[in-house]
């Protein structure tokens, strides 16, 4: 009958779609189960060549611990979002890499496990082999939340070919330039059209190196308000601001995407680049000769920001013992040797530093700076709400470097909101300390 046929054929069709759906369900069951129960670790992979480094890490970990570990690699752009979602759903890997600027944020929210008890109970573990800066980056409220993977100061790259072409004397690798010397040296290049003296990204990350070197800071000493409007901080920001707006020593800003500075330098017509040694790999592609020197010294010295990253254990871990073993293996000298010899960045362990080798010829200054034997550095202190503060400082501040508003107006406009955010940070600190 008409009706029954309708219903029957409809049911048939419903069944068919149901079958397709369940087929889809069974199809995937062969894949690995959710991470957590086994020895798994998460890492960002910032390039196809880096995948190989993590493969070597895995092989090393597997052979030392006699296990079959799983390395969960995620492209760097999506790593943090994925890690956040895994934290929210309790599906993180046993050990996860965390960028230093996020360690306070995660630690304050109880997302990471404090490691101090594990360190104390493990006599074989030598915490002193990690650079002091790395240990500072990896701790929050006097507790350790991560073990270092890499750590490095910001340095100054220079285009040797360009220096020789224009007959400008090369900067010294031993003695940091004063700001005046640096300014004169960079300015010398602007005589030629389409050649520039210096490039950096007009954001807070790069400005902090100048601010520290001038004796300024982002936070006041008791971490309750902004210190960006202090005399020292303003002096530093004005110095860089003038390079952009007044002296036009820098290439014009064509977009506000952060890769700007490296791309400018690779163009071959810029004398100095401010950046970290993690760019050494990218610069090895450059078509010109280049090297590195210490960051220029301001009124307080050469105190560029020192930043890094580490591996941490998510707080909800079910097997802290295995996680600790895995964490130790991932940050051991042998593992960091693999990382450093691939040229990724300076390792967090002093004993592995010898594996981070030239080119460029002066690369050794990175370790000398960290050892306190040359120039200096300042640990990149960030807040528990760094993402928010960084976002606030990336609105009006870059506008002043574009010449759209004055630096003073920019600082004036963001200071109330910045103070409020630092206040929130301070409250979080008080809450977590008690």
């Amino acid at each position, binding site marked *: 009958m008409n009706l029954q046929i*309708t219903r029957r054929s409809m049911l048939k069709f419903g069944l068919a779609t149901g079958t397709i759906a369940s087929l889809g369900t069974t199809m995937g069951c062969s894949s690995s189960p959710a991470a957590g129960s086994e020895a798994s670790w998460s890492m960002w992979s910032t390039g196809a060549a880096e995948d190989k480094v993590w493969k070597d890490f895995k092989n090393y970990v597997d052979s030392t611990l006699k296990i079959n570990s799983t390395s969960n690699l995620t492209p760097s752009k999506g790593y943090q979002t994925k890690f956040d979602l895994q934290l929210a759903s309790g599906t993180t890997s046993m050990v996860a890499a965390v960028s230093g600027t996020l360690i306070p*944020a995660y630690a304050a929210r109880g997302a990471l496990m404090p490691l101090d008890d594990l360190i104390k109970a493990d006599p074989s573990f030598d915490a002193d082999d990690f650079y002091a800066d790395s240990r500072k980056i990896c701790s929050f409220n006097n507790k350790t939340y991560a073990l270092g993977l890499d750590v490095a100061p910001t340095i100054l790259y220079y285009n040797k070919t360009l220096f020789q072409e224009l007959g400008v004397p090369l900067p010294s690798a031993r003695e940091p330039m004063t700001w005046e010397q640096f300014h004169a040296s960079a300015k010398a290049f602007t005589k030629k059209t389409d050649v520039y003296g210096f490039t950096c990204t007009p954001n807070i990350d790069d400005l902090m190196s100048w601010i520290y070197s001038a004796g300024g800071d982002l936070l006041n000493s008791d971490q309750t308000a902004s210190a960006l409007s202090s005399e020292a901080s303003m002096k530093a920001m004005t110095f860089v601001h003038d390079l952009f707006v007044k002296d036009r020593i820098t290439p014009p800003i064509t977009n506000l995407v952060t890769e700007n500075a490296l791309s400018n330098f690779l163009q071959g017509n810029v004398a100095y680049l401010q950046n970290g040694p993690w760019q050494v790999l990218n610069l090895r592609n450059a078509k010109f000769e280049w090297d590195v020197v210490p960051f220029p010294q301001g009124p307080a010295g050469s105190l560029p920001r020192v930043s890094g990253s580490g591996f941490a254990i998510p707080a909800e871990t079910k097997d802290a013992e295995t996680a600790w073993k895995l964490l130790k293996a991932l940050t051991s000298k042998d593992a960091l040797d693999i990382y450093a010899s691939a040229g990724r960045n300076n390792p967090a362990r002093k004993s592995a530093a010898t594996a981070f080798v030239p080119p460029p010829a002066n690369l050794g200054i990175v370790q000398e700076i960290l050892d306190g034997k040359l120039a200096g550095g300042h640990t990149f202190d960030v807040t528990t709400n760094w993402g928010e503060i960084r976002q606030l400082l990336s609105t009006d501040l870059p*506008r002043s470097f574009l010449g759209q508003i004055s630096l003073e107006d920019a600082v004036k406009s963001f200071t109330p909101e910045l103070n409020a955010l630092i206040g929130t940070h301070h409250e979080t600190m008080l809450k977590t300390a008690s």
Partner: protein
Amino acid sequence: MSTKITPAELVPRANDPATMTPRPPTKKKYRKENVNLTAWLFLLPSFLGFLVFTAFPVVAAAGISLLEWDLFSSPTFVGLANFQKLLTDEGFWASFVNTAYFTFASVPLTIITSLILALLLNQGFKYIAVFRSLLLLPYATITVSVAFVWIWMYIPQDGLINTVLSWVGISGPDWLVSETWAMPALIIMSVWKGFGFGMIIFLAGLQAIPQQLYEAAMVDGASSWARFRNVTLPMLSPSMFFVVVTSVIGSFQVFDQALIMTNGGPGTQTTTLVMSIYRAGFENYNEGYAAAQSLVLFLFILVITAAQFLNQRRLVHYDN
């Protein structure tokens, strides 16, 4: 034509194998009730999946808007506090204005471009399929990769666009770093990236127009403009309606290109609503606030969409 099923249609033909048994006398009533059942049988496969994978997360997001939750620690119920905070959040309302600007400029431009190209590509000649495929390229290419080519083209000094403009004596603006031109730059790029969507749908819509209508119009001696106005446009209006509604919804959620090309700057000139929502959720770890913002966005889109639906009675031609 009537949407109701007329009794005449229900009378079976004698030779129809499906109706060999005589109908029960109550067939008319039975039949009427059955529309609900038939409809639900058609709906079921879609509805079940929709309920679980589409509707549930939306309802959950609405629930999250009443919480203070940082993703990691256990959430606390804060009632409407997140919405209260929104009222005074200047950044949120600035991004709201930016998003509205983007939408009201990019939607008409995209639709006009799509329509013109679809009309052009609906003409018959030998290699039309090649052109159709090539013109789909902008839509088919991943945003991250094309966005960077556009960044290069927008370079103020010697980028491609300003170079071309200088040939005709125009000194081009600073585009992506200009307070006035950053948003137009994003809009132009988005029109280029997005017209393929409307273009394919209009092509399908044009293909669905019965040829007889044109023939009838030509018999009546209608000019080509009259045929476009009286046949093509009304017959295309259902797909036009779809493209307008979904483009408005999509534009209000613009995110990728703004994030990649300007990161919301200079200042907050190109900060969009979804960018603000994303930052609240995944940079500031304030899930409740992100959800509250998205509900305000939802309400706004809802009002606009409802207005479109109310107007469709006048503007959209359905055959019923």
